[in-house]
């Protein structure tokens, strides 16, 4: 049972690294993404500066309009940036869902760990998924997998500093 738990953690390590690696290959590395990102950063800085100076010198109509136009452009660029990211993340998401269902079949109905606590009713549907019996300290594959992914994926992202800072 101990091996099952460790295997699941290893699987989430693997999927987190492969997932982030693929995102890097298909998104963060591309010229389009880098260009958009640089542009968004530049525009945000410029806009911030402008806003400060406008505040100081009281607002006149022309500069206010220009500010609004700049804001609009920044919004558009931000949207493009998110769209570039979304396309590839969607593809990666589909691939991993397939992988997940494959593992789900392997561990179907198997108790992979013993929980040191009884989860609240809300989570029992996940933590006791497809398991026989009424012992709610039995842990299903999916519960442990979700927990490990939650912790590992964010740490991998932070480690690789891949997260888009403007988010």
């Amino acid at each position, binding site marked *: 049972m*101990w091996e099952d738990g460790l295997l699941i*953690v290893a699987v989430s390590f693997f999927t987190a690294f492969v997932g982030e690696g693929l995102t890097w290959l298909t998104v963060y590395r591309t010229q389009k993404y880098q260009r958009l990102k640089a542009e968004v950063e530049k525009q945000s800085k410029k806009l911030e500066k402008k806003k400060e100076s406008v505040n100081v010198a009281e607002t006149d109509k022309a500069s206010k309009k220009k500010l609004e136009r700049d804001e609009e452009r920044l919004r558009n660029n931000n949207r493009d940036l998110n769209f570039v990211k979304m396309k590839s993340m969607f593809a990666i998401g589909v691939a991993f869902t397939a992988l997940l269902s494959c593992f789900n079949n392997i561990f179907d109905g198997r108790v992979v760990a*013993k*929980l*040191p606590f009884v989860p609240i009713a809300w989570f029992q549907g996940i933590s006791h998924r497809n398991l026989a019996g009424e012992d709610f300290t039995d*842990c299903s594959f999916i519960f442990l997998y979700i*927990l490990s992914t939650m*912790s590992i994926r964010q*740490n991998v992202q932070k480690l690789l*500093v891949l997260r888009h800072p403007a988010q």
Partner: protein
Amino acid sequence: MYSAAHAKRNGVHGKNKLAPLYLRILKSQSEWPDKDEFLDVIYWLRQLVAIIIGIIWGILPLKGFLGIVLFCMVNTGFVYIYASYYQQVDESEFGEGWEFAKEGFMTTFAGFLVTWIIVYTGIHANDSAF
């Protein structure tokens, strides 16, 4: 991990040469001119503390809701004491007083649960009728 570019981006120009990061983490009342860097340090320390707590709770074993509540208290308490008393940083610079407590809490919590569950399973799963 904290390159010159990173420091520059956050407005640190390196006029005063800072001690290496690991020394500043260990030494009390270090200088933290880069706010993001300090929050990162808090984040990683929290992860480390969560894993250590998970291992200890699993070995003892500490069970039930008490384990979760004690984890929250110890983990948050550690961060608070480290930031406010050991490093004596100015809280107001980092927003509200609980900004430290929020930094990466869910990730920390998930990491703690996984460690706790696996260590507990490995050592105590056979104790009860399984």
